[in-house]
């Protein structure tokens, strides 16, 4: 006690300190309440008051075939996108962990590069590559691999290609930061004890990297659910996902009740996933805090 009291003396008392901290964050809190939570609450409010008060909009989750279809399509595309992105992201992150010097810089650069290119530009580039008389089909046709152009665009395949391309960096970043924390000497030790390379990877590296996989997976899945531009352009009207569906309800047909209900649903799904994610991994670490 005697040793610690001189250090404590100039400080504020615990609850004073806490009050001071609250004061510091107050402007940010007020701004969030006024500009974010209040409008958000209004959106929730519309979903239970329009066109008539009640839960009629939410009943559409069960009764409306159109809503079913958009939910199923969205879910299917998000699951496939997440799975493919994780596999690609895992391989890339693994390579980055092993790489050194110029290789590492090169890999990092090419992983991050797409992040700096507009999503519109990327979608249009895919159109050029994938369309029936596009670069890929022309090449395959002239090489004699195929006799009829493949349908690579204006279907779910095209949308998934575009979405995976967008999402890979978001999968790599948490995976890489997780893998870098793994002590590679453990693999060496396993090898020394007679494990094959594959066995050492499967029994040691893979389990240690699982938190990164889960974090990446949830992140990618959450992002995928809100995709708007990519499905609209690469789906060519044939792939109708939830974000675009909400857009139509809000701006075009002013069916605000249905639109806000789906927006609420999307929000609830995302918050649930975030909560799950928070239980599995340290969120602060994931978003870059030391």
């Amino acid at each position, binding site marked *: 006690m005697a040793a610690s009291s001189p250090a404590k003396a100039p400080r504020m008392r615990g609850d004073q300190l806490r009050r001071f901290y609250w004061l510091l964050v107050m402007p940010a809190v007020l701004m969030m309440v006024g500009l974010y939570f209040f409008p958000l609450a209004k959106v929730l409010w519309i979903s239970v008051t329009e066109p008539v008060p009640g839960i009629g909009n939410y009943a559409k989750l069960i009764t409306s075939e159109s809503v079913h*279809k958009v939910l199923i399509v969205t879910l299917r595309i998000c699951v496939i996108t997440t799975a493919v992105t994780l596999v690609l992201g895992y391989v890339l992150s693994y390579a980055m962990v092993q790489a050194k010097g110029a290789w590492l810089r090169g890999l990092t650069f090419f992983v991050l590069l797409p992040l700096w290119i507009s999503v519109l530009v990327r979608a249009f580039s895919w159109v050029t590559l994938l*369309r*029936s008389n596009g670069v890929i089909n022309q090449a395959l046709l002239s090489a004699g691999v195929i006799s009829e152009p493949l349908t690579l665009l204006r279907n779910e395949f095209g949308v998934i290609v575009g979405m995976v391309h967008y999402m890979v960096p978001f999968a790599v970043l948490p995976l890489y930061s997780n893998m870098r924390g793994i002590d590679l000497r453990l693999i060496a030790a396993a090898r020394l004890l007679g494990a094959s390379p594959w066995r050492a990877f499967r029994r040691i590296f893979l389990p240690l990297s699982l938190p990164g996989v889960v974090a990446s997976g949830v992140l990618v899945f959450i992002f995928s659910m809100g995709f708007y*531009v990519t499905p*609209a352009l690469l789906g060519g*009207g044939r792939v109708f996902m939830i974000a675009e569906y909400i857009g139509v309800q809000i*701006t*075009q*047909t002013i069916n*605000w009740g249905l639109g806000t209900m789906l927006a609420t649903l999307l929000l609830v799904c995302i918050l649930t996933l975030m909560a799950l994610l928070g239980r599995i991994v340290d969120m602060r670490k994931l978003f870059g805090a030391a």
Partner: protein
Amino acid sequence: MPMTKVQSFQEDCAVLAQEKLARGKLTRRQFNQVMTALGVVGASGLLADKAMAQAAKEIVMVNWGGVAKEGWEKFYAAPFEAKNPGVKVTVDTSGPSTGKIRAMVESKKVTWDVIDASVTSAILLGGMDMLEPIDYNTVKISDMMKGFAYPFGAGPYSFSNVLIYDASKFGNDPPKSWVDFFDFKKYPGKRMLRRDANCMFETLLMGDGVPMDKVYPIDVNRGLEMLKKVRKDAVYWQSGTESEQLMRTGEAVMGVLWNTRAKILQEETKGKLKFTWNQGIIQPTCFSIPKGNPAGPLAQQLIASTCANVDGQVGLLGFLGNGPTNPRAAEKVPADLKQFNPTDPANAKLQLVFDGEWWGKNYNDVNQKYLDTVAG
């Protein structure tokens, strides 16, 4: 401009003019001719109005952006300002989407006076009590072609959904109707449709053999059945640029698109791509007034002026390809432009006039069904 939602014709005009300007195809000749005419109007108007000494007033017109702003300023705003000194007409390009108008009117913070809306959204918003009715004592009904004046909107320009085809493939026996359009045996290849129910049900029904005068009221189920038969052989456009692109790259051999875009393709490809007015679906735009607009009844006068101004309408036809809606305008159209004027008597008689009343009542429901069926 976001490319993600279905683009309206009104939005497309803005993009179109920009593209034309970029390609250096915009002729200033018609522009200058009309401006000279306007100058005369301006001088005489000035004398008459000096005595009126109107208080300075601003009217905000809202369209969908791009160089269409320039066209509006010269053909709509300037003539009105010349006749009404002290009134300033501003062209805002933020895009008056149905959702935005609703939000604005409901929050009672209306900052716009005249909006460029589609017939469908004018009727939709009018039905929700969000628009001022058009005052047909101010706007002269005799300035509007038959079927183009709506309770909540009166527009000075029109456009049409027309059939375009690849004449290098089908030039010997070109398609003449929507029945031909959907005849995949006779005309093999992909079709291009619009990803919006508006005008597509008319196309589908006529394609299924419904005569032009029996299209309305639309048999929605029959239209959807027809769509199910053809949807696999079709690509869908959402914006005017996209409709051009799909035809230009040959992804579709035949398509439905706006006449403004069809004209560009026909001229650019020197007739390899050709369009026909046969069974086209023609509709006016709607200039509408959001409820509680700041300039009040002055907005009615501005709409009246644009609908009465024949020279302005002809000028805009040369500028963007939009058809005049004043029945006296067609004869003033220069001979070389007549073939591209949707409301030229020779072209108009081949087309179906869009039934905005039906669409205003049914658009929401029918469009959702259409989009769902396209997605299959």
